[in-house]
C-alpha cells in the first residue's frame, strides 16, 4: 500500500478508537457503552492488521467481538430494567479520576517521547509479512524453547475452572 494512504488510514483508526473509548466510559446507558466497547475492540483488530498479525486480528474479532461483548450484552439484559440510566457519583470523584488519568498520561507520554526506541529500517514493516499458520500452530503445540504447549494446556485448565466457577456462582439456589 502507498505509505501516505497507510498513514491516513492509521490516523483515522487511531482517532476513532480514542473517541470511542471516551464514549465507552462516559455513555449514559449501559447498552451504548457496551456497543462502543465493541467498536473499540474492532478498531484494535484493525491495528493488528496494520501490524501484519492476521491471526491475532481474527482471534480478536471472534473472541472479543463474538464472545465477550455478547456476554456483556446478556449480563446487561439480566441486570437492568427498561429506561435505566446510570447513576452518578458526586462531582469530586470525576475530578479525581480525570486528574489521575491526566497525570498518568503526562508521565507515560513524557517517558515515551524521551526514550529512543531503536528499530531502524525494520524490514518487517514494509510489504506483506503475514505469519504462516503452520508456524503459529507448531509454536502452540511444541514443548521446546519458544514453544507454548504448557501455557496452552494451563490456559485450558483455567478456562475449565472459569466455566465451572461461572456456573457455580450464577446458578439459582
Amino acid at each position: 500500500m502507498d505509505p501516505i494512504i497507510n498513514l491516513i488510514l492509521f490516523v483515522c483508526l487511531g482517532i476513532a478508537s480514542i473517541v470511542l473509548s471516551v464514549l465507552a466510559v462516559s455513555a449514559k446507558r449501559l447498552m451504548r457503552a457496551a456497543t462502543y466497547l465493541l467498536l473499540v475492540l474492532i478498531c484494535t483488530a484493525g491495528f493488528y492488521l496494520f501490524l501484519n498479525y492476521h491471526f491475532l486480528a481474527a482471534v480478536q474479532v471472534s473472541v472479543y467481538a463474538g464472545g465477550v461483548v455478547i456476554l456483556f450484552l446478556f449480563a446487561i439484559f439480566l441486570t437492568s430494567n427498561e429506561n435505566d440510566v446510570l447513576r452518578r457519583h458526586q462531582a469530586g470523584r470525576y475530578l479525581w479520576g480525570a486528574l489521575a488519568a491526566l497525570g498518568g498520561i503526562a508521565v507515560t507520554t513524557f517517558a515515551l517521547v524521551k526514550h529512543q526506541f531503536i528499530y531502524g529500517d525494520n524490514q518487517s514493516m514494509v510489504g506483506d509479512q503475514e505469519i504462516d499458520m503452520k508456524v503459529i500452530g507448531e509454536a502452540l503445540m511444541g514443548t521446546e524453547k519458544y514453544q507454548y504447549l504448557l501455557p496452552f494446556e494451563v490456559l485450558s485448565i483455567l478456562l475449565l475452572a472459569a466455566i465451572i466457577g461461572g456456573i457455580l456462582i450464577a446458578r439459582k439456589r
Partner: protein
Amino acid sequence: MIRMEYYLIISTLMFFIGIYGFISRKNMIAILISLELVLNAVEINFAVFNRYLFPGQLEGMFFTLFGIAITAAETAVALAIIINAYRAIGNIDIKNLSKMKE
C-alpha cells in the same frame, strides 16, 4: 511510515481512559467495560513491541493471544458474580456491594 510511538501513544490514551472509567463509574458492568479497555491497551502494546523491536520472534504475539483468552475467562467469572449480586441486592451499584456480606 507509521512509527512505533504512534501505536504506543494511542494505547497509552486508551489505558488511562480506562483508568478514568474505572474510578468514575458506579455500575459494576460499566467498571468491567473500563477494565476491558485497559486490558485491550496492554495487548496492543505486546503486539507492537514484538513487531517493531523483535520482528523475528513471536513471544509478544503469543502473550497477546493468551492475554485475550485470560481476559475472556475473567469476564465470564466477573459477570457471573455480578448477576449473583443483582439477585442478592437488586441492583449492581458498587456502593451496595458491602451488603453482600450480610
